[in-house]
């Protein structure tokens, strides 16, 4: 875990909300190392989602630098961002964001069609325990199942990093644990780097490191010596 895959330096983000400027990030330094699970904790508005979006190329920093494998993301063009998302990053959102008109299998195939070395869609779905639900549409799946399809879709292209924004936010504890198990299995088997935003402090137990955000800054970084398995997470 010595090479940082992501490194953010002095990142600020200011939103221009009419007459006032809102500081979402006020100078954040953060390194993500290959293969680690980083959990980002903090109250609403503390800046964790903003940082994740900047790292994923969905948003741009106002000042500061974000590097991915040494490449300066802040200098990327629109086209380079698209390519970056296509090749390197898998996203998981709170509300799954599946395509309702495509089945589980097709939702995964959507991504594998445009990737250079993808898994087979069936294989990705099998990894998240949804082998039997491949022909179902999102509307026919439970929330937990939909989130696992989203995970299968994110991992199918074998991304180097997965950015998860409240992946269990809309789920009950039982299905939430299933989703965490899927994520941790992928981290172990594929060595995928993960950044997970959560409000649920219990989830910090599965992380290698925990970043606590407050008022647009990182207030604390803690290293987990004793990681728990998802099933052991107290919800």
């Amino acid at each position, binding site marked *: 875990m010595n090479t940082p895959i992501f490194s953010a330096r002095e990142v600020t983000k200011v939103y221009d909300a009419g007459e006032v400027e809102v500081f979402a990030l006020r100078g954040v330094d953060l390194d993500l190392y290959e293969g680690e699970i980083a959990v980002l904790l903090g109250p609403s508005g503390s800046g964790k989602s903003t940082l994740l979006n900047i790292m994923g190329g969905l948003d741009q920093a106002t000042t500061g630098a974000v590097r991915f494998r040494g490449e300066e993301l802040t200098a990327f063009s629109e086209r380079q961002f698209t390519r970056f998302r296509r090749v390197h990053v898998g996203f998981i959102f709170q509300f799954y964001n599946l395509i309702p008109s495509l089945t589980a299998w097709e939702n995964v*195939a959507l991504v594998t069609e445009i990737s250079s070395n993808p898994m087979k869609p069936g294989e990705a779905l099998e990894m998240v325990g949804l082998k039997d639900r491949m022909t179902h549409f999102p509307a026919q799946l439970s929330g937990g199942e939909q989130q696992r399809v989203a995970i299968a879709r994110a991992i199918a292209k074998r991304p180097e990093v997965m950015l998860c924004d409240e992946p269990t936010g809309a789920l009950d504890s039982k299905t939430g644990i299933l989703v965490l198990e899927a994520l941790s299995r992928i981290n172990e088997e594929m060595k995928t780097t993960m950044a997970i935003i959560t409000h649920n402090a219990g989830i910090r137990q599965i992380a290698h490191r925990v970043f606590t955000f407050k008022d647009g800054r990182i207030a604390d970084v803690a290293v987990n010596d004793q990681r728990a398995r998802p099933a052991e997470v107290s919800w």
Partner: protein
Amino acid sequence: MSVLDRKLLRDLLRMWAQALAIAFVMACGVATLVLAIGAYRSLEETRSAFYDRYRFATVFSGLTRAPLYLRERIVSFAGVSGVELRIVEPVLLDIPGMAEPASAIAVSIPDSGEPAVNRLYLRTGRSPDPARSGEVAVTEPFATAHRMTPGSTFDAILNGRKRTLTVTGIVLSPEYIYALGPGEMVPDQRRFGVFFMPRTVLAGIFDMDGAFNDVAIRTQRDADIHAIEGALDLVLRPFGGTGAHGRTDQISHAFLDNELVQLRAMAAVIPPIFLFVSAFLVNMILSRLIVLEREQIGLMKAVGYGPEAITWHYVKLTLVIALIGIAIGAGAGNWLGHGLTALYARFYSFPFLIFRQSLDLYAIAAAISALAALAGATRAIWSVVALSPAVAMRPPAPVRYRTFFSGSGRLLTAFSQLTIMALRHLMRWPLRTLLTALGTSLAVALLVTALFSFDSVAFMVDTVFFRAERQDVTLSFRLAQSPRALQSVAAMPGVLRAEPFRVTPVILRHNHRERRLVISSVPQGADLARILDLDLDPVEPPIVGLTISERVASLLDMRIGDVAEVELLEKARRVVLVPVTSIVQSYVGLAVYMQADALDRLVGDGPRISGVRVTINPSRLADLYTVVKQTPAFASAALQSISRQHFRETIEENITIMTSVYTALAVIITFGVVYNSARIQLSERARELASLRVLGFTKGEVSSVLLFELGFVVVLAQPLGWILGYLFSWSVVKGFESDLFRIPFIINRATFAIASLIVVCVATLSALIVRRRIDRLDLVRVLKTRE
């Protein structure tokens, strides 16, 4: 302003582009309605007022010559309110500065006082004085074309003598509102006019003292016109009466009627198209708005707003859009109405013709449009009212799709997931997909309907002027001549080829159906005026029997082998039975032909010719004109080459105006349908499209989903539009069909292609406007909100 009204105002401001697109479609409906009905009323009411005030006749008849004392008998017919016994003579004019001869009709008016029927509207000057010979009143269009004012003079060949006539007044006659010269298909004010001379003067010139050769009768409102026609025929039979007829056979009246029929057809067909499309669009955007506002509606209900208040809120939204449409449409309709009326004024001579605007017309147009919009809104609004607050505040059940294309099936290899997304979305709302396609297809249909007239008219010009009537000039004699006259004409300067013809007016009867028309003779081996068979190849008429046009065959229900009753109007109405031996094509008038010898035998007064058709060496045209102007035997000279040019120019100008209007209408429909449809899709699928962007799809790939769907609908609309356009065009052709002329039904393939091209271009443009919104999609915001 209540809070709900504030919400309404903000909703409208937010979706101004969509609301305006719908308002424009609605405006087209209102404008075409105001235009068609307004123009119809203007023309109809102006005509009727002109007819009434200037006592336009209801029964007409020509004859050879009859004594004036017949007046007593004619006046005594039951129901007759006025009789005018006139002298009407075709004449040739020699206008200063005009090489070719102009044609005119000289009509007698009483020496003093106004005519009992067909009175004249005096625009300027005074009536001609019978005491001064050579004074005339001329019709306004002719005077305007030659910049004549009272005091101007021109030369006319009157009964073989050239006389100089002095204009004393400029007039308009209800009889010549639409004045067609000999051989013309559209009025040419320069080459045809009507002038009026005092009875004694004209009688002196044409040796008609104490006699008349034309009757015009005005009848009482409840008179039995048929009985009057019968009685008149009986009285005029010994005097060469050519058969009494009503207004329907009067050229000017018939043309105006034709125009009115077309306006009525336009009012019945075009506005409903726009009202239908606008109702559909209102339904589409309101349904979407209500889905988006579902939770707000639940909340409003929960805090105590009743279903009436909420219904009224959305009804008001619909009505505001409708009002904008009505305002734009009323303005546009008014503007177009003035334009159309100005165009009419070029063809129809009325003392006054203004675009009549009445409040009721606007009120009707507004009410119909508002009702159409509300009809479109009803279902969407009902869905709001029906929901209980608790249900409304929960998000709607997720949309269920079906596996038309199975995820693991073989079809998968054929389509990308993006294509499958688009196809499933289209098939999830089949009715909406079909209605969107139908809306777009109406634009294609309108364009086909507008553009096909170019094809048809080009074909008609080619057929009539280049295949059938190939002469340069048609010279008609005042009285039928012996065939020797042909040699004299052939010897005239510049004449290359001369072919004689004979015409005789008849009534043709078959099985209780009858038509007044003219039988024309065609010489053996005719090369100038040729008869064209149903495939438009030249044919010789059979040596016996009648050769009739398809129109005559269908009007009189005749087939080859049927025997027709021919009543010879010039020959004391002798009746002869003649078989139909050939059916041919003709686009002008009611054509019936006979071989020359056969017609001579039928009429029974030996070989006679009514006129000669000639082709001319163009370099000697001026010489020919000079001779024609000096030859007393000629009643008229129809100059085909000039007519051809004039017809083409006039018709093409009219078609260009019409096509521009229709194209604008089609563009508005296409934009309204495609833009709104794209906006709705974008609204419904913003989340999906944003997800695709996050997954690494490029802007182009993401837009392709939306563009594919729109493309699918637009492509689907094309064949549908071609079929509808074909049917609309066919109905236009049928609507135009009259005894005066018919338009061939010709649509070239290029016309379909051009119509489609225009619609596809506008659709693409509309889609690209929406595409810019995809490019600007705020990924983070879209993905973090729950639908």
